[in-house]
């Protein structure tokens, strides 16, 4: 057994320290070709496999190394907020919610990636560009602070078997907004009359948790003509009578079925996944929820997968097309990243049309491809699967709008505070009229917007 004296311990410690110091340049050289990437874990395993393939293909093509971490959405968000706050950041982050990008672009915490997006600008759907062209409060101008990669339309998901069990047909569903929504109440009535306990017409997210309720409200607001609540110049228009009228109608349309018992009472405390769970358990006939995650989760259960009907937005009550709110997700480079060069190369590679197309196809098409011409020339998106066809048409053919957060980060605070969810809860639980609830919500939104003055559109 070796005898460790104080001298030998000290000598060896010094030797190790010297070896470490000498090895540093080699470690630094390796770091020069390595980028650390944080990515959101997929809803289906195929999404993660597709991302791993994207990384492997890039490493093979470039000779660079990507150290990737795939993390579930909620922990990733916390990790990203912590990283930005502490300044210890990776080279690339995928942002999984729609607040992170505008808030950090505003605070000048992100690297301008216009040089990556601009060359490919003509191929992108306009909504994707508007969603990532964010305002920086230090430079006082808008630039691209993220590379758009995934488009998420908000389709309706309907159980065909429940509609038929109630004695109706999916083809009977009207195609104007109010009539479309009202169709499902008699479906619930008939199902209940047949003895089905605890089945509900709608799975609206009327909760103050997660990101779904804000998107739901924006969808309903735009259906009633309130698109201009926040305009692309970042201005809030709570004083516009048309916007206010639309907001009141949206709140009324969402809360009235709740009060009448057509929405599960528990929705007031649901989180983002609860509507998916309730839908998969066939406890709700129809759900209004972003992306194809609802369908993709059942991809291997073909009978159920084929039983779902995916529908885009119906026409407005005036017969005109209603834009769908469309969250855009992608990747960004935080300021303080150690290897911006490799990070930019990786992102440039990732959004090459064929690369991005193959990546999103590998993820079963949960996210739509924000490059319409590429999608139209690939039968995967428009021909091979009825869900993807409906989804692709909604996101790439029919009108879409980015979430308001892209126009002004104040809306990120409004959504995070759930100002409009609170308005719904004021109507459902606190006896307010929709007008009173909207007055209160608009007042709060005005206070928040006052903190984010945008000086140059």
């Amino acid at each position, binding site marked *: 057994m070796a005898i460790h004296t*104080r001298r030998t311990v000290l000598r060896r410690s010094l030797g190790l320290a010297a070896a470490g110091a000498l090895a540093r340049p080699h470690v630094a050289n390796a770091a020069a070709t390595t980028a650390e990437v944080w990515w959101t874990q997929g809803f289906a395993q195929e999404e993660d496999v597709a991302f791993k393939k994207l990384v492997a293909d890039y490493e093979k093509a470039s000779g660079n190394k990507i150290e990737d971490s795939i993390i579930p959405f909620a922990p990733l*968000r*916390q990790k990203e*907020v*912590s990283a930005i*706050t502490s300044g210890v950041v990776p080279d690339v982050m995928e942002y999984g919610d729609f*607040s*992170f990008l505008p*808030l*950090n672009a505003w605070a000048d915490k992100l690297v301008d990636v216009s040089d990556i997006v601009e060359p490919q600008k003509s191929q992108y759907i306009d909504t994707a560009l508007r969603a990532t062209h964010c305002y920086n409060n230090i430079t006082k101008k808008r630039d691209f602070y993220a590379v758009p990669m995934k488009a998420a339309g908000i389709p309706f998901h309907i159980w065909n078997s429940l509609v038929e069990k109630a004695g109706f047909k999916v083809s009977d569903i009207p195609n104007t907004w109010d009539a479309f929504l009202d169709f499902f109440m008699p479906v619930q009535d008939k199902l209940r009359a047949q003895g089905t*306990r*605890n089945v*509900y017409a709608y799975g609206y997210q009327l*909760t*103050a*948790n997660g990101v779904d309720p804000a998107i739901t409200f924006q969808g309903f607001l735009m259906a009633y003509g309130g698109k201009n609540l926040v305009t692309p110049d970042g201005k809030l228009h709570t004083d516009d009578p048309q916007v206010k009228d639309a907001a009141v109608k949206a709140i009324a349309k969402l809360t009235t079925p709740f009060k009448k018992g057509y929405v*599960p*009472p*528990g929705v*007031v*405390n649901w*989180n983002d996944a609860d509507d998916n769970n*309730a839908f998969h*358990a066939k*406890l709700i006939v129809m759900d209004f929820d972003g992306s194809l995650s609802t369908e993709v989760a059942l991809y291997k259960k073909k009978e159920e997968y084929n039983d779902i009907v995916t529908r885009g937005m119906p026409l407005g009550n005036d017969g005109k097309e209603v834009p769908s709110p469309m969250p855009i997700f992608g990747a960004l480079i935080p300021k303080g990243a150690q290897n911006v060069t490799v990070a930019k190369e990786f992102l440039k590679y990732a959004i090459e049309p064929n690369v991005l197309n193959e990546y999103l196809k590998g993820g079963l098409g949960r996210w739509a491809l924000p490059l319409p011409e590429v999608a139209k020339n690939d039968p995967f998106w428009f021909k091979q699967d009825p869900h993807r066809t409906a989804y692709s048409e909604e996101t790439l053919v029919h009108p879409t709008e980015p979430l308001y957060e892209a126009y002004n980060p104040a809306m*990120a*605070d409004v959504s*995070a*505070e*759930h100002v409009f*969810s*609170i308005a719904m*809860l004021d109507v459902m*639980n606190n006896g307010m009229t929709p007008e009173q609830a909207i007055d209160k919500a608009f007042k709060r939104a005005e206070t928040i917007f006052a903190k984010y003055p945008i000086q140059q559109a």
Partner: protein
Amino acid sequence: MTTLSAIELGRPAVRRQSLWRYWRGGLRGSEFTWALAFLVPYIGVFLAFVVYPVCYGLWMGSEPKLYTDVFSDPIYQQTVVNTLVFVAFGVNLKLFLALMLSGFFMRPGWWTKGLLLLFVLPWAVPALPSFISIHWMLNGEWGFLNNALYILFGVEGPSWLNSRWLALGSAVYSHVWKWLPFWTVILLAGRMSIPQDIYDAAKVDGATGLRRFAHVTFPLLANLYLVLTLLATIFLLGDFNSVYFVTGGGPANSTHLLATLGVRDAFDLANPRLGVAVVMSALPLLIPLVIILMRRLKQSEVQL
């Protein structure tokens, strides 16, 4: 020069030597070097993982404007009330039940021990899956509880998580369910440490049943009970899981505690400084509790 003055001259040298030896903890030569070598990593870990995070937190929450924002937030005001209610019910209910149950588990017999084993299970299982399960069990439409009520009694149960007080009550229940075994076992150990002689003497004096509890058990456990109350209050002020995973702070942010609101502000609002300020606002309550706790821990004598 007198003899006395020579002694006086020698004194400072002796004092210096004693002081140096005192600083070295009585260690000599290489012993002191080795002691330092072993101590340095610990100090490093302590600085990195205790001192630095605490100072960083204090620095993050040091801006006065943060507190203006915190105190003007209506959700915060509601949260303070929730936290006080949660602490008042959570601590007292839990410790009172623990005191009673510890008496029950003092009973002799194999079945009491078997029951104790079952009783400590909630404490032994991981907290998160338990609280998530409770969240699902309390779902008004398809949760286990309401379905059981419907199947057994034909009654439609309420939506447990839809109103502020029912939801907060559910969170208190979950917390008590999870932590009751822990405090019961501690009080059980406290009861077991009371010498049988005292009970025998009390019996000779005619004290049995409730009188024995009032005049022997409770006075001897009182200090422990008070210390546990203070400890439980400190733990509960920082409790996050029972509310976050059972009610999610809802409905409409009405059941947040300071800990959950802090996390919500830090990550949902992407404002970590605000989140830290929310948690820091509990310090005026927390620091006196810690001081009282430290003082109580010094007391060891009991007057029967």
